């Protein structure tokens, strides 16, 4: 499972980005997306396009954690969202590892842009060992929802602390290394 986490300001400006992989079931915490390295913009495209869904879901749902709101089927990327009272949005893209069998079938399709062609060799050993009960296996399962909720909650706590810093003005990019390391730690802990 690979993750791409973004904090967006109310005007859609990204305040914070981080990409990481799962640390559960032997994962090494390094993100391996299905797109080739030249197509990392895909994550941003997918996140950006899911803002449509966030805008809709935020009026339909009273909670801060909006759960899994969007899917991008060609790359099987799943988006979960979290709203803060100030209007900043936390978006987490998670992508289950590609199984070797599906990789073989998908490589027939052309167009790496759609996430079809990612070599199976790049898969880490850890991800292939992931058992069916782990978070990585099923992105829409209740366990995953719960894990993402915990993660979001912890990040939110840290976000509030960071934003309250006297040197931070609203709308600024978050450059705090402490915050980054805390997010990484939360990722290790829950995802």
């Amino acid at each position: 499972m690979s993750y791409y986490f973004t904090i967006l300001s109310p005007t859609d400006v990204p305040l914070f980005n981080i990409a990481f992989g799962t640390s559960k079931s032997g994962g090494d915490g390094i993100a391996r997306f299905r797109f080739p390295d030249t197509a990392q913009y895909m994550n941003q495209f997918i996140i950006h396009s899911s803002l449509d869904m966030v805008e809709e879901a935020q009026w339909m749902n009273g909670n801060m954690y909006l759960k899994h709101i969007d899917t991008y089927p060609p790359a099987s990327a799943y988006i979960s969202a979290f709203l803060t009272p100030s209007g900043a949005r936390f978006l987490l893209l998670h992508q289950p590892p590609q199984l070797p069998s599906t990789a073989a079938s998908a490589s027939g399709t052309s167009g790496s842009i759609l996430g079809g062609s990612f070599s199976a060799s790049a898969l880490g050993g850890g991800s292939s060992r992931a058992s069916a009960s782990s978070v990585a296996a099923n992105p829409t399962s209740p366990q995953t929802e719960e894990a993402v909720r915990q993660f979001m909650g912890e990040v939110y706590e840290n976000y509030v602390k960071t934003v309250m810093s006297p040197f931070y003005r609203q709308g600024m990019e978050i450059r705090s290394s402490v915050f980054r390391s805390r997010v990484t730690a939360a990722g290790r802990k829950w995802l």
Partner: protein
Amino acid sequence: MTSPGDAAPVKPPPSFSPGVPRVASKTRYPNQRRDSSPSLNADLVNSRVASPPPPLSSTTSDLPIRSASPLTPSFRSSTPQLARSSLGSPVDGRFEGSEEIRSLIIRSFSPVVGVYASADTDELVRQKGFAGGFWELIRPFGENIPGKLVIRDSVGASRSWEDYGVRFVGLGNNNQSPSELSAGRSSPLAHVEEVLEKQLGSLDDPLGGSLYPKDFLGFPSTSPLYKLYLRQLLSIASATPHETFRHPVASVIAISSRNSAPLESLRRLYADTNNGDKKVPDWINPEYLRYYVLVHDEDRDDITESTKLYDQMKRHFGLHCHLLRLRSNQCVVTDDDSVQVPECEWLSPSERLFGRTEPLVDLDTEGLPHVFESDVMAIKAFVRELVAQSVVPYMENRVAVWNDQVASRRRGISGRFMSMSRRWAGFGSGSRSSLTSGGASGNYDVAHGYYRYDAPEAVLRKMADFAFMLRDWKLAASTYELLRSDYANDKAWKYHAGAYEMSAVSLLLSPSSTGTKVKIDGIDQLLETASYSYLTRCSDAPNALRCLTLAMELLKSRGGSAVESAARWAMRVMDQGLVGSTGQGLFSERISACYAARSAVPGMNWGSRRRKAGMWSVFAADLWLRLGRPSLASAALEEAERLYADVLQGDGAFPMPEMQTFIDNLRHAVKVEYLEARGLDTRDEAATAAALGTEETSEQLDRRKNRKSLIMNPLDSGISPTQGMRDNDNAADDDFERA
């Protein structure tokens, strides 16, 4: 969303200032858009003459026009983007376009009428310049029956249709084509792609922009290339056992007045269709309607003789007769009353590829043959009479009879019980594992893979198809539903897939079931099963593609939440590799159109899918660029800009840096390729500079659209004065271009 474009009243783009109502209602939209294009052109000319101030209203696409000024006139007529930029807003696209696509889909399932003419008739027609004989002469006229046609459905309600048609096929070809296909050179899908390539090829050469001018005038929404694709896809089908749409519903048996022994030859022709070489295979019902036509030669033969013969025919064969009076002389263009034969709409891909090459190469005097106007009138009257008085009543009658005799027996309590007991028959005699044989009715010929035409399953399917072709979708849907379990029990997978597919399609078409969410879910299930059966169990890619494409289009035309479903099926198509490279581009554009069709919640600025639509347009542009079609790429990119205009802040820059980089690179690449394709030296500094200079003006266009859409949205009325300043100051917002 705070809105940059609202500054537009401060500085309206020149071409829109006078006479165009500012508060545009939805209905007025299309006209306005179409108006705008010519004036845009005019404006371009002006701006080129008075060049020093950068022109405000122009698009990225006009860049080749201005940089290659000597060639301008010819370029303008063929530059696709200008036409495409008149493409309607998603709102009118949804209404007008979807109706058109819907009609296209409905018309593609029209009854097939076989044509079998005697040698002397074919000879007569060949004299008129139709090498294919009588069939070729009447074929184009069957596709659209003039006037309204009233059809009664199973509950006795009448409905009239403007766009009914039948398909004429040569009776002989009908049987050959499946075998020819199985022995065939390449798959029909490859042919479809080839046709597209060819069409694109003719499109790209600067003088022969044959497709887009049409778009410019009459078709505001769907790209004509996609429509061509859809039409090709829907006309692949030849007669197959698992569906009866291509089985003859009736057959026209024609003789001419030259025949020496007319009644004898009619008998012989009839016998041929029954057990001669025109006999249909075992899976086609041979009891179709026979219609007898006497072709009278106006130029050479005596009408009194023919009338006498015709009276005799009526006495022998009953009502299904017609006297068709044709002139046998060849008609040339210079004749007073010459009329060009209309073009066939439903040519199959292989026909388009192999059959009609020569006429396309020649000039248009030779392209389509001409006939006398009197002949056209006669043929039209004949076709109308054939369809309105014989074919449709015959089909209505058959549907009623089968519904009575076969379907109602199955629908009733006892029928359910019977099929149930049949299904569990194997349970008593053996173990559960022998269920395979237990449920089967035994009517299915496993070795050859078809039901005989008189098996109840085949009759029911035919009845459902008849009902479908008569546009009684409710009856069709309920009958397909009956059939689904039967086919599954018999493991007749292709039939199974077909029943599921048509069940979903008829549910989507039937007007009563306007979409609740539950229904959409049910339909998704049906489609899932159908595509799985087609692809995995039968590996029948063309049918799977047809099924999913139909589903996507019909779901899209539903609007609302169904469009998400539509987009998902389109993604599935791309994902499973059902389409080739050109198809990938077209489907990306289609997904974008699907998302764009989702309109915002009334009065709010959320609920639409503009970002998703924009994203897929960008992907489409990328795909087109890789295929070496910069003009299409540029059109898609422009579409993306239009879609993104609402959601991007201020200067139209993307907030995310990597996205911005990608789009800038893409834009640049498209531009370079476009210029190269037009034979311009891209290393020329001035040209490149000009290219860069035009970009920001494309933003201006977007702003204007943005503004209009804001007018529709009363809650969205934030005007930021700083934006107005920026609009005035063209040189200021350059960070957008220079990445």
